[in-house]
């Protein structure tokens, strides 16, 4: 689960990780009120969307006066912000963060994430902060410090020193930096984060350490033990069809093509998208109804796919294991009766109770095209659009 910068900074404050003074605003008046309370100008106005690259996209601006805060707020609130992470369609800005400006001596990069291979939490840091860190990592990997923390032992003093000396932290800021990094690690573990990233982490002219930016991603699988964090989910930032799908425990992602597809299992769903593309068409979505799908889930899956106006044909590919083909077929029939299907639907089923499933579909009177295998299914659906 992604959270906004202002929410990430609230979590930082709770753990004593220093951040600039500031607050979230939803209107011009609110923004100007917050700016006046920050004890001086300039202040920074930052668009709050779930995507990086906001500065380059024009979503982060410096204001020298209260009037300018007003002008910039008008400009940014409601704008369609396009960054390299939003895709060309961009994202509408619905809230901004107003923060005190800082006198920056140096900009650093700091992040914590899970390393799959070592099964450790890895701290990545670089003196080249504020820049595109992936470019730094690929062109000059020696400029990235990596420290692997054993999750059973937690972060050790020497590891804090490895990072601090590696970053050349000024001696006056050393104590504060080490305390902050230790707290970040605690925050990461206690909140089941999958990523905590600060870019840039700054050293101010008076040797203070400050997280100028904050990005926190939380492991969705761990939400059962973080009821308090559930309120940080922002449905405005998510695709409405994806939100609808998540209510029924369906794994759905909206894409650009015109061939809708419903599959059981994530791997098979990805492979089905690929095979649609191989046949010369474009997948309109990823939809995994899961291993233990019920007839009701299948019904909702089909309904959600048919909500999408760009879908011109649907491919249903089921390999019945836990999900039996007869259960699946019942779901398709129910959905078709309720919503009506007026575009071509190709069905390919295999596995547990496949004969029963085929019988249910055949006797339903629905206009479905059946396919003998995957290649046949992809060819038929590509021909239909």
């Amino acid at each position, binding site marked *: 689960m992604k959270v906004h910068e202002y929410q990430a900074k609230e979590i930082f404050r709770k753990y004593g990780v220093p951040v600039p003074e500031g607050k979230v605003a939803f209107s011009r008046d609110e923004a100007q009120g917050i700016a006046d309370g920050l004890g001086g100008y300039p202040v920074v106005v930052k668009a709050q969307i779930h995507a990086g690259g906001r500065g380059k996209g024009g979503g982060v601006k410096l204001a020298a006066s209260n009037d300018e805060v007003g002008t910039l707020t008008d400009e940014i609130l409601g704008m369609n912000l396009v960054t390299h992470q939003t895709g060309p369609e961009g994202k509408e800005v619905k809230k901004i963060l107003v923060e005190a400006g800082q006198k920056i001596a140096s900009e650093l990069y700091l992040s914590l994430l899970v390393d799959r291979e070592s099964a450790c939490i890895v701290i990545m840091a670089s003196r080249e902060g504020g820049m595109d860190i992936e470019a730094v990592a690929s062109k000059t990997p020696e400029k990235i410090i990596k420290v692997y923390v054993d999750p059973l032992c937690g972060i050790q003093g020497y590891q804090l020193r490895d990072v601090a000396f590696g970053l050349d932290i000024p001696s006056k800021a050393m104590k504060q930096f080490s305390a902050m990094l230790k707290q970040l690690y605690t925050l990461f573990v206690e909140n089941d984060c999958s990523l905590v990233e600060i870019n840039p982490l700054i050293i101010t002219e008076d040797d203070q350490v400050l997280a100028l930016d904050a990005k926190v991603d939380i*492991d969705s699988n*761990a939400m059962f033990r973080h009821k308090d964090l559930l309120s940080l989910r922002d449905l405005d930032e998510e695709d409405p069809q994806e939100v609808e799908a998540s209510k029924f425990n369906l*794994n759905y992602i909206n894409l650009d093509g015109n061939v809708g597809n419903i599959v059981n299992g*994530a*791997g098979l769903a990805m492979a089905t998208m690929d095979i649609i593309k*191989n046949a010369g068409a474009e997948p309109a979505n*990823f939809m995994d109804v899961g291993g233990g799908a019920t007839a009701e889930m299948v019904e909702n899956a089909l309904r959600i796919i048919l909500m999408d106006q760009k879908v011109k044909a649907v491919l249903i590919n089921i390999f*019945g*294991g836990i999900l039996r083909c007869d259960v699946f077929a019942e779901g398709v029939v129910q959905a078709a009766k309720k919503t009506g299907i007026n575009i071509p639907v190709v069905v390919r089923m*295999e596995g547990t109770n496949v004969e029963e499933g085929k019988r249910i579909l055949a006797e339903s009177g629905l206009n479905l095209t059946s396919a003998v295998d995957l290649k046949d299914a992809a060819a038929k659906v590509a021909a239909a659009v």
Partner: protein
Amino acid sequence: MSIFVNKETKLLVQGITGREGQFHTRQCVEYGTNVVAGVTPGKGGQDMDGIPVFNTVRNAVEATGANASLIFVPPPFGADAIMEAADAGVDMIVAITEGIPVMDMLKVKHFLATKKCRLIGPNCPGIITPGECKIGIMPGKIHMAGGPVGVVSRSGTLTYEVVDQLTKQGLGQTTCIGIGGDPVNGTNFIDVLEAFEKDPDTRGIVMVGEIGGNAEEKAAEYIKAHVTKPVVGFIAGLTAPPGRRMGHAGAIISGSSGTGQAKVEAMKANGIHVCENLGEIGEISKKVF
């Protein structure tokens, strides 16, 4: 021959009295797996279809000599169940549970480093040696006993699709293993490849990967250096957009790493026969093996 499990395997099921646990225990028994015990805390002394249920894994192992465990407990208790099995001396642990938090799996992985057991999963379909032993949720019927193909995969239903095509081509399987779709798991591709290489009855290997992480790239390098048997490879998610998690927690392209294209290229560069269209994996395997 086969790898990891066979006729001698004595299975216990953690979470045997739950809905899924009951259903799949019956399926395993029907397939011929020797299920000797179940574990559900608080239900010790009862039985499920005549299979004795115990309160703890340790009790079950002491009473029945079980050497493998199949785990169906809900995600909040997944890590605990794996560690309990490992601590009780079970050799082979298969965790089906989907949705165990990564932080829990980090701890499990380091905990297991001091134990002698093997973990398969979590979030996986399990392991099957056709005709001998099925520990998992895969449909037994689609498999064909006797080899010569070993199958290793990160997916569930995608593995069934592959196995089904192999069987229809008359290619039997020695052992099929789904290692699971989570970012941090137990047994990895290389562990399985190493075992298939040593197994005289496995004469060819099918390896099914997907986007995210770099396990396929590492496996491809390993194959070039250590595997003499022919390998057919497939990667799911070549058309997946970056930054979107495709169902499995591990299936996400982040930045430039984990793309399907990079994996396909790594496979080709290391002498693996790459299948680019899932519909053809049976035919290609037939030609290669």
